[in-house]
């Protein structure tokens, strides 16, 4: 198992904490699914450190907390938000998100690399939200990141793994780096697919928070993720064009 900056995740589900109908439902989704990591946004709720009641609730979930820089558009904003996150949650972990495009919320990979370098130098353990681009991945590792989080599809779109070929290539290119599919997952089958490709975890939020029954969807995601992980570890068969009968037909003994 690949470790995340020396920490082994209790399980591969990273669950966001935004957009739930109520904190009680959020808590229920974590409790019932057993998700091991909670991501939390500081940008919007953060004015003046005033999100205390909500943040306390996140701490009380008793899971690993991965603060994020969601909503940041510049290096400066992201760095400031990361520094605040470290103060609030007492963790060097930061999910680095730098939005480059308003409609697709695509990461700005140029600023991402720059911010990752600054934060790593300041002692942060950076989880960069990136695209599936291999060169960007290499630059992020060179900047000191030890985890990569490529998108499956645009944030909140629920479209699944839009470029499975590239995600597969990324897995092959970075065999020792923990990889997380972050964003775009809408259904458990998408999450299972990411794990079947050999990814180490899946990060999702909207698909659970905006489901009619968030807690039940969280459980469904967890089961799918575990199924995908088990399948990957079990070394699945290769697909083939012709049938391969499971019982031999030639030379079979028969009585006439």
């Amino acid at each position: 198992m690949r470790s995340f900056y020396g920490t082994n995740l209790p399980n591969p589900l990273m669950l966001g904490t935004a957009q739930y109908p109520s904190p009680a439902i959020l808590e229920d989704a974590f409790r019932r699914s057993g998700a091991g990591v909670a991501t939390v946004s500081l940008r919007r709720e953060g004015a003046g450190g005033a999100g205390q009641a909500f943040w306390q609730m996140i701490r009380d979930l008793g899971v690993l907390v991965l603060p994020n820089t969601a909503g940041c558009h510049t290096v400066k904003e992201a760095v400031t938000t990361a520094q605040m996150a470290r103060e609030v949650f007492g963790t060097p972990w930061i999910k680095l998100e730098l939005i480059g495009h308003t409609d697709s919320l695509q990461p700005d990979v140029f600023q991402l690399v720059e911010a990752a370098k600054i934060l790593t130098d300041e002692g942060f353990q950076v989880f960069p939200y990136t695209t599936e681009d291999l060169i960007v991945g290499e630059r992020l590792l060179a900047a000191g990141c030890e985890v990569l989080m490529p998108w499956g599809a645009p944030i909140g779109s629920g479209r699944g793994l839009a470029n499975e070929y590239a995600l597969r290539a990324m897995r092959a290119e970075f065999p020792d780096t923990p990889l997380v599919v972050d964003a775009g997952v809408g259904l458990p089958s998408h999450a299972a697919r990411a794990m079947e490709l050999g990814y180490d975890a899946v990060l999702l939020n909207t698909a659970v928070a905006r489901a009619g029954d968030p807690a039940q969807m969280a459980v469904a995601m967890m089961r799918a993720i575990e199924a995908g992980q088990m399948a990957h570890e079990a070394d699945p068969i290769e697909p083939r064009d012709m049938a391969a009968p499971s019982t031999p037909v030639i030379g079979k003994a028969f009585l006439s």
Partner: protein
Amino acid sequence: MTTWSVIGAGVAGLAVATELIARGAEVRVFDPHGAPGPHGCSWWAGGMLAPWCEYENAEEPVLRLGQRAADWWARHTCVERKGTLVVANPRDLPDLKRFSRRTQAHTWLSADEIARTEPDLSGFPQALFFAEEAHLDPRQALACLAQGLRDAGVAILPERASEGLSNVIDCRGLAARDHLTDLRGVKGEMLVIRCPDVTLTRPVRLLHPRMPLYIVPRGGGVYMLGATMIESEDRGRITARSMLELLSAAYALNPAFGEAEILEIGVDLRPAFPDNLPRVRRRGGTIYANGLYRHGYLLAPAVAQAVADLALENKRTELVDEDHP
């Protein structure tokens, strides 16, 4: 006869006092701020009585208990029963479909039907219409309740209730956190604008990926534009982002809103429990009624009835979650 001391003259306190009086109890109301005003978060509310729309993102009691609200309020103030329109920008049409799936008691309107219902709302190919919903003017509603209490001989005493009173009903909202540790504040920001060029006669909601933005007509070309929902307890000023989002919503409904005057900017914290449902709690001699969240006007009648049932008849209804007399 027992005299009940209601603390807090916001929508919860006034509704509770009104309900107790209607059932023949003796009541006095304490609020150091005196009459209802901008110090209380119910001053900044939208005043939508929209249980079906709210159910999209709320628990079942909001839908069921909220349906009684319009009739209760109509006994005390002017209630407009014109329904709610829900629209979405073309790129967010999947959200409108989802909204229709998650709610009841609505019909789909075509572009022509929208034009007949609200002629100044153009450019939307379809809308959901919730005919049963209503709205009121919150400040007028508070004034009507306060006047009704005065007419019944109940004064709103501009002072703090003295320590050690018994038969207290604590309706202080977020200030009651000193006793209700699971209460939190959820920040809301709103605008009041004047735009006589646009005529809308009923609340219109514009679906948005993060929050339901809505506009409520107050008459005379004045509109309330609300409201953000942020898990923050910063009661400071509105952020530029929130202002942009609120104004963009109005602009999307009708570009003529671009010429509106901004009359007021409101920022306050909604008191909420972890499941965002209100609670009635009896602890010793005090009954706490709190946690109305974004449903102050929608659920104040149900909360008032639950308090009266508990206080006067010792009846525990579903909103009562702790009872230690």
